[in-house]
């Protein structure tokens, strides 16, 4: 692989260039290619994946050195003392994201060949997907705040296009608009943050500016905590953190591969990436860190509470995504950056898997998304069932699957860093996670069939082009936790090994500075002490959630059998009527937004328009009429008779010329 090193300056840009080339080609010729429209986009992403893996390998084996590798392209905005360079930058953090984005991106492209096969907009779909890949790759490769912002907006655009892909559906059109606008609210913060960075440091190069910000913290024009919070506002929008979470569930209007790729595995991680990238800034502002942690863990709890009762299979997964993203931000807030990226990676794979699986389910039962009309599908779509079960065990945090390792690290670090409240809420969320995910599996795959009897005989497993990506995603969902944490804790010490895990050592150079600023010291991992105890708690709550779900919604894994108890569910939910209704109605957030933005905002806008037509227009018109017609307003002028206009002009002109003459006399 080292033979490739001299070509890195070409290869790294190619990762982003290939998808945009695929987009341009497909946008221009895709319509004529008909059912072969996927060839170029899939090939482009495949090639990008190959190159990305070479780059990732080089990065992890130290080929770029500790500081990463910079590829300069061109001066994008040369505006005097404000210069923005279009340049790419790869370090180990970028490499981690490259793995997630390229791999899941490629698998989703392949899956879509099957899933979108019958859609008339086949070519359009692949064009948009390639546009998204370009934007997302640009986002993680950018070396400059403003270029990140560009990519940030472009992923917003591709997300808009893909959510609204079925443009004839009004709900899809509304959802895409909502997603774009809510994201833009966060983007205001991000843009202001970028401006603040420039005003503070005079540069927008990420590493340079961070260096200046953290070394001159005391003398900054804009306090560093403000910079951090402004950047976080951007992250909240893209990663759908409370209260900017409202767009993500609606984004499920898009085709399911899109939900998997953009709204679960990649784009929504952008905020986590941003905060991780800016870790020294956040480390210098403990108050901002606390805000991040609080919003993160609150979102985790809030979203999980909604996921408990949703009946739409994709919505459960959407709220689950919100909740897991909340975990990641909680991790960022408590300074467990490696854990956040760890969870980002594992979550990307198992949530991507779960979404693609849900797509396969929806496909099987003929575009039905309501879990109340599913049930007992396990035997009929075995591949989907098995892979989704793996994903579920992974997200529920049951060892030794991937989610256990990353989630446990987040909870453990929160506790050890003194954020016991984050840990406590996190544990509650862990119970809920296991519960709602097994509820989903129970309602969908186990128990008795509630499928419409017309559809029932037509249920079929998806084609191989869809199930193979599922299995390929199941592998990392199974193993990624062990691989990335090996040979470090929690498994390493059991075998007498020492030192950090694989991911921790990869990311050490990236987070070194932040950890130094916070004055964090490495603590020894005590498998028979506090760490062991915390792991036991994590495992216990995961099992508790799972068993509760089994008891209520049934189970059917091999010999483990249980029947669903719908009456018990009803009885239990009737016992907490308010909480049940709140969860079912998503805490009435859509209603609140509707009231404040659509109704109140609409009133204000209409009032302003009235003001414009009557007052503003009237005053300026009135100024003329005051002189010409002694304050009778424009009523006379608007009789529609030309003579009146002519008279008005004449009088006005005379008055004006007279006054000019007077002024000129004085002025000279």
């Amino acid at each position, binding site marked *: 692989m080292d033979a490739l090193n001299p070509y890195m300056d070409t290869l790294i840009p190619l990762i982003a260039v290939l998808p945009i080339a695929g987009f341009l080609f497909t946008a221009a010729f895709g319509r004529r290619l008909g059912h072969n429209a996927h060839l170029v986009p899939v090939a482009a992403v495949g090639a990008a994946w190959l190159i990305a893996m070479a780059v990732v390998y080089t990065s992890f084996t130290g080929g770029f050195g500790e500081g990463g590798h910079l590829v300069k392209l061109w*001066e*994008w*905005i*040369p*505006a*005097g*003392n*404000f210069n923005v360079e279009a340049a790419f930058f790869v370090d180990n953090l970028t490499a981690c994201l490259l793995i997630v984005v390229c791999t899941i991106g490629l698998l989703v492209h392949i899956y879509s060949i099957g899933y979108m096969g019958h859609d008339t907009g086949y070519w359009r779909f692949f064009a948009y997907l390639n546009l998204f890949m370009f934007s997302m790759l640009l986002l993680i490769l950018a070396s400059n705040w*403003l270029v990140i912002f*560009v990519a940030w*907006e*472009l992923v917003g*655009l591709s997300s808009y296009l893909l959510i609204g892909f079925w*443009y*004839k559906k009004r709900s*899809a*059109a509304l959802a*895409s*608009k909502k997603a*774009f*606008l809510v994201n*833009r609210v966060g983007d*205001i913060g991000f*843009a*202001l943050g970028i*401006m*603040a960075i420039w*005003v503070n440091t005079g540069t927008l190069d990420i590493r340079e500016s961070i260096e200046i910000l953290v070394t001159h913290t005391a003398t900054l024009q*804009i306090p560093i905590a403000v910079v951090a919070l402004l950047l976080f506002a951007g992250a909240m929008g893209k990663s759908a953190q409370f209260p900017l979470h409202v767009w993500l569930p609606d984004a499920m209007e898009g085709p399911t591969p899109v939900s998997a790729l953009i709204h679960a595995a990649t784009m929504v991680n952008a905020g986590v990436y941003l905060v991780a990238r800016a870790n020294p800034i956040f480390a210098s502002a403990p108050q901002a860190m606390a805000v991040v942690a609080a919003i993160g863990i609150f979102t985790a709890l809030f979203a999980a509470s909604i996921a408990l009762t949703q009946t739409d299979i994709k919505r459960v997964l959407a709220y689950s995504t919100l909740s897991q993203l909340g975990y990641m931000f909680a991790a960022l807030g408590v300074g467990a950056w490696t854990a956040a990226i760890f969870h980002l990676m594992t979550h990307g794979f198992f949530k991507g898997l779960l979404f693609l699986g849900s797509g396969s389910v929806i496909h099987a039962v003929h575009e039905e998304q309501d879990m109340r009309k599913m049930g007992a599908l396990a035997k009929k779509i075995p591949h989907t069932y098995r892979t989704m079960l793996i994903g579920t065990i992974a997200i529920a945090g049951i060892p030794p699957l991937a989610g256990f390792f990353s989630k446990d690290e987040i909870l453990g670090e929160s506790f050890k860093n003194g954020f016991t409240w984050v840990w406590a809420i996190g544990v509650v969320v862990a119970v809920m996670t296991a519960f709602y995910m097994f509820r989903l599996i129970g309602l969908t795959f186990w128990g008795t069939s509630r499928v419409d009897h017309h559809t029932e005989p037509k249920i079929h497993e998806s084609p191989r082009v869809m199930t193979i990506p599922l299995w390929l995603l199941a592998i990392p969902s199974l193993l990624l936790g062990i691989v990335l944490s090996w040979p470090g804790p929690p498994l390493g010490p059991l075998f007498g090994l020492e030192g950090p895990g694989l991911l921790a050592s990869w990311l050490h150079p990236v987070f070194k500075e932040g950890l130094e600023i916070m004055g964090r010291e490495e603590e020894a991992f005590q498998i028979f002490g506090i760490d062991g105890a915390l792991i036991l708690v994590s495992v216990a709550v995961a099992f508790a959630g799972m068993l509760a779900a089994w008891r209520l919604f049934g189970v059917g894994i091999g010999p483990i059998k249980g029947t669903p108890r719908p009456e018990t569910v009803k009885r239990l939910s009737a016992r907490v009527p308010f909480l049940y209704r709140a969860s079912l109605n998503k805490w009435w957030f859509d209603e609140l937004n509707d009231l404040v933005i659509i109704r109140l905002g*609409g009133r*204000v*806008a209409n009032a*302003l*328009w009235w003001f*414009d*037509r*009557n*007052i*503003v227009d009237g*005053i300026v*018109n*009135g100024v*003329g009429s005051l002189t010409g017609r002694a*304050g009778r*307003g*424009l*009523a006379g*002028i*608007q009789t*529609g008779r*030309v003579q009146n206009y002519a008279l008005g*002009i004449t009088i006005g*002109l005379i008055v*004006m*010329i007279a006054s*000019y003459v007077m*002024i*000129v006399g004085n*002025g*000279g």
Partner: protein
Amino acid sequence: MSLDGVPVLSLITFLPLLGAVLIGFLPERAARPVALGTALVTWLVSLAMIAVFEVGKPGFQMAEVADWIPTFGIQYHLGIDGLSLTLVALTTTLSWISILASFRPIKTRIKGYMISFLILEVGMVGVFIALDTFLFYIFWEIVLVPMYLIIGIWGGSNRIYATIKFVLYTLVGSLLMLVAILATAFTFQGTTGSWVGAFDFEVLRHYAATSGFPDALQLLAFAAFFLAFAIKVPMFPFHTWLPDAHVEAPTAGSVILAGVLLKLGGYGLLRFAIPLFPAAALTYAPLIICLSLIGIIYGAVVALVQPDLKKLVAYSSVSHMAFVTLGVFVFNQQGLQGGILQMINHGLITGALFLLVGVIYERTHDRTIAKMGGLAGITPTYVAIFGFFVFASAGLPGLSGFVGEFLVLLGAFAFNPATAAVAALVMVLGAAYLLWMFQRVATGEVSDFLKSLRGHLTDISGLEIVTLLPLGILVVVFGLLPGILLEVIKEPINDVLSDVARASEIPLDPMLVAGALGILAFVIVVRVVTLPGLRRPAAATGEIAA
């Protein structure tokens, strides 16, 4: 390439006049090709002008000077710097596009229309290259007449109301400006004792930079200039003529109105008002920044609830153009760069949006948003292009609108973070009215209204694409390589900055301010009291439908 000895600027200015005269002598059917040919030749000459322009050279280039009214030192003085260059190029480009776009929609009195359009081009180009204040005023007024005719004769049903309003508003401003020009010349003559150079911009600028005009004149003359330009921009609260004019104007008229005419105001501020009266500019800057912020938010909010496509784009212009004045009056490099880029970008993008609205109107004879819906399924190519320009207008990075907007915000942030925070709200509001409009027009089920004219609703034609293509290309090129423009406008910006840097604010008499505010309050009260008597024509109002 050398064009020594060739009066390039006069050529660009008066070629269209030649074309107009020619059309006058030719039969009606020759009007279209001759007009287009003239505009294209003018455009080519302007490209030659760009080719020989020396970027980075200070001062004015390709100057042409001849005595005109020597008694008063009035000259025929032309010359361009980077700012003029870009705006002239924008004008010549939009001119041939507009003429081409008029081929189908304009079916009556073609000769008169084309003559008006070419004369309009004479005026617009002249404004951007005149370096004599009197000559500038003449060109300024020349613009008014053909535009008056274009809206008044080939406009919509309520065109008379709109034209009168347009002319009255502009006339108020321009006559005030004439007074200011004369007063400046008188003052100059009074102190130097000579008429030589009393109307020459370069001489006056030098005078302003060395001796400086007296405070009282600065305050009054700047106010007069400002009013003229603010009406043209148009700045809140002088903007209400714009929606009416746009709605009634034919498509090409709207394109030129938004694309070039509004830029006259921004240009005038940068070329004359600020360099000649820098101290007054500094004094008024906080007020102007305030009005700009109001305009940015207000224009966007009012655009949200417009039922008519053209009105929506018109109010969006109010919001976008307020970015220009905001950027200019924070008086730093980024703000000025952003302000000028915003002028160019607004010309390209909003021009394109009006062309696109024209495409719908041509087929449906309607612009009511509520009647549209589902166009994406009927006219996919049209919707793709429409979407492109909608996102360009919303400031999508990678396209040109973003760079200007961001630089203005950056300049504003350096001036005062709160200013930038308010202006940045437009990132949401702007996207909101644009995407909501796009959603209602392009997505969903095909509306009953559109269904009823299925046959007539053809996708965008090749000719229409030709008019939009150059704009689209420029939007992408300037989005990816804004350095091209930034390099060209560097010198003019430095000039403005050094003019302002030398000046210091004029202390205002509190009594004067109180008096002005009192008069304003009186006018408002009178207006509100007499409000019930105000009834405008039915066509100009209309309620919003979801």
